[in-house]
């Protein structure tokens, strides 16, 4: 049995958490808006046995209707701009958008590429972001815990 990663470092309370409505429960719909799948691997790892994001009340769900937050990875490609907006539209408010990884924050290495619409923030309003290329699972966990406050 693998020892779960450290469970210390509670959510940092320096600024008001945008996810106050969550009450310790966060359902995430993951949207791959054009990622190289590096971020996906890290997300998979964050929910795996080692990092086990579920113990903080975070769960991946199958439909944006069930979600509180969209976890968007990758620069938004031209083909994914409309689906991303539609996914956000399909999510019941209050809702959050988390930009995952450098590409999602500012297009990363893909900046200026011909198939790119822009960063996630250019398409939808972003509430939180997680830097890194790809971000470390601990980074992902920290960001999510900051939202849930657990």
């Amino acid at each position, binding site marked *: 049995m693998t020892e779960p990663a450290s469970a210390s470092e509670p959510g940092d309370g320096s600024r008001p958490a945008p996810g106050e409505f969550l009450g310790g429960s966060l359902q995430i719909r993951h949207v791959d808006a054009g990622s190289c799948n590096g971020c996906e691997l890290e997300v998979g790892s964050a929910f795996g046995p080692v990092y*086990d994001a*579920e113990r903080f009340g975070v769960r*991946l769900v199958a439909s944006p209707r069930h979600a509180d937050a969209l976890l968007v990875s990758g620069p938004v490609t031209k083909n994914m701009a409309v689906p991303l907006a539609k996914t956000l539209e399909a999510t019941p408010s209050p809702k959050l958008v988390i930009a995952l990884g450098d590409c999602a924050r500012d297009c990363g290495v893909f900046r200026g590429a011909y198939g790119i619409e822009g960063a996630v923030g250019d398409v939808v309003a972003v509430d939180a972001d997680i830097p890194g290329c790809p971000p470390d699972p601990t980074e992902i966990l920290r960001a999510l815990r900051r939202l849930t406050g657990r």
Partner: protein
Amino acid sequence: MSRAVVGFLQVVVLVAGAPILAGLVRKVRARLEGRAGPPIAQPWRDLRKLLGKERIVPEHTSWVFAVAPLVVMCSVGLVAAIVPFASTRTPFGSAGDLFAVVYLLLLGTVFLALGGLDPGTAFGGMGASREMTLAALAEPTVLLAVFALSVPAGSSNLSAIVAATLAHPARVATLQSVLALAAFAVVTLAECGRLPVDNPSTHLELTMIHEAMVLEYAGPDLALVELASAMRLAVFAGLLANLFFPWGIATTTSPLEVVLGMAALAGKVACLGVALAVFEVFVAKLRLFRVPELLAASFVLAFLAVTASFFLT
């Protein structure tokens, strides 16, 4: 305490306890998989948050979509009031027997399937079709198991069955009772959408059954659906517990006995929940078209239970 209070208490305890049972199953599974897992009360946190969220209705839907969660919840809630969980003296003791319970639960299934069909999405239709397929095939097993249970008691009234088992404890170990238990357990897995019939934690739409029907529900409606499906599991677990191991159930409505009955029920259901979690860790999901084989097997078990009760005694 009057019968009405007992019924009300049963509903309250089931509503409060069902998400805890779901949380317990998840926790045990997580531990066995080498994870810490979410806290046991996590499903309640999820529900509380869902209740505060926005209500979304897909375009093109009708009243059916809006009504379905209410009907699902009410039918399972009524079952919680009818079934002798804490005491054999429930308010609706004469209102319904085991057949009524089975058909009330089917009412919920039917409305959930209609709610899945209403938005007209491909996955909703797929989930509804699969759910009704399994419900149709599980029906004979359920009713035959009911039949087998009602033979020794001479009645399909739940209180009578429980009372008969209490009066003759040795009957639990008869062949027909064991076979009926096995059949009922398999059907519980199918009716509650557990492994190996349906994977409750899947995110892959094409493998979904229950989840596919509720993909369009959001916020409070989703909370009702989730709570109802948790209660469905709790009701089936409670039925299994009290029909086959009724000890501890109150036979009067005195407050002390009822509270003890509740505690006994909670203990038995928790044991079943742990057993379910352990079982789920070790089995894989069956292909959809292998599920009828499983249901046929459980049907045969129930059938053998019925015939055994006439030919062996």
